[in-house]
């Protein structure tokens, strides 16, 4: 999911960076002084969550949780995902610094969309809303990765398709886990989901 440096064309990098700058600006605009610890600690929690590996078939994968991040943080998921990807780039060299803008946009746009799409239905059924938001946001992220590769050059079509279909089972599992997390949080601490 992390696109490496040097793969994308200048246009895609530029558009991605602009979207990320805009989204981050909106995200931090309404940030009040008392939100700092909450947003920061949730960011660290999402970063740590992405270190946990889940068995899937014969291999294992790590979680992204951008659907959950979107539901909890809304527009603030832009700075959250930006930091997580920045740290992944400088600590583990997943992705890169020039492609940081595009990678952040690819993951944060679905997060924000899932905030508007699924948050109103949260109270009806936590598990199903969580499942849908997790499944939807990973699929949309993959679609967006596919599009950023496709706009770089149409010859990336097959590669993009392969990435997209390889991530469908991951999206499914991510959905299930997001559902379980949301139903856990609804039983233990509802104000995280309401605040």
């Amino acid at each position, binding site marked *: 999911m992390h696109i490496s440096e040097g793969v994308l064309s200048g246009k895609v990098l530029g558009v991605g960076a602009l979207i990320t700058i805009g989204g981050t600006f909106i995200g931090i605009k309404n940030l009040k002084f008392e939100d*700092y610890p909450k947003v920061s600690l949730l960011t660290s929690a999402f970063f*740590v969550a992405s270190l946990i590996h889940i068995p899937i078939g014969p291999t294992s994968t790590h979680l992204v949780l951008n659907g959950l991040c979107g539901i909890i943080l809304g527009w603030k998921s832009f700075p959250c995902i930006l930091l997580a990807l920045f740290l992944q780039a400088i600590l583990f060299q997943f992705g890169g*610094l020039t492609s940081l803008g595009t990678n952040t946009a690819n993951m944060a746009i679905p997060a924000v969309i899932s905030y508007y799409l699924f948050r109103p239905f949260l109270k009806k059924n936590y598990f199903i809303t969580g499942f849908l938001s997790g499944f939807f946001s990973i699929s949309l992220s993959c679609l967006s990765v596919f599009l950023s590769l496709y706009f770089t050059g149409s010859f990336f079509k097959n590669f993009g398709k392969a990435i997209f279909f390889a991530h469908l089972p991951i999206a499914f599992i991510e959905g299930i886990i997001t559902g*379980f997390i949301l139903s856990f949080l609804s039983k233990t601490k509802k104000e995280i989901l309401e605040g």
Partner: protein
Amino acid sequence: MEKIDPRLRILCSFTYSILVALEKNIEIFKYYLILPVVLVFFISDFKKFFKSFISVNIFIFLCWLFLPFSIGGKVLFNFLKFKVTYQGIRYAFLITIKANLIFITNFVLIFSTHPIRVIHALHHLYLPKKLVNIFFLSTRYIPVIENEKNRLQKAMRVRCFVPKNDIHTYRTIGNLLGLIILKSYERSERIYKAMILRSFSGIFWTYYHFKWSKKDTIICLSVIIYFVWIIYLKIK
């Protein structure tokens, strides 16, 4: 390398990365090689370098599996009914060079520094204050929450939890993650109270300050000359 001002290192590596990422002409790459070749001598931790090198090249390797067959052009040879083209190999090669040149430069200039120092340097490079505050706080608390995660996972192992492909595993991991989020949320409330108690006003004061030395000026000038030279070659 640590003695050079981090601000200079970040700017230098950022400019270089952008120049390389936007480059399409394969001929010019011999000039781009100069900076990474100089920097290779400053690598101190080779084990970490090779580990990172592999993780950078996984994506590139996947590209090699698809690209040589996907671009139309002069057919070099056939491989199991697929046509391998000259243009395809050339493009895949270009991507490989770009990714690795940027990787080596960033590895020596930025990745060897502690993230807190990188963010501190970004603060001096006019990153918005609110963003810097979030970055500082969450980078500081990542190890704490990671410890928490390790403790919970240890408790799971003690109770003979083995991850499998079943709904029980997913529910358990969902609960584990929920608990991590819950704990970090509660911790954030405590941190907020502690910050209020110490009359936090929105600025993290730092004890350590960067000092711009004569050496930095010399390096800065030579790097600028190098970049201008490359841009001149590019235009020509």
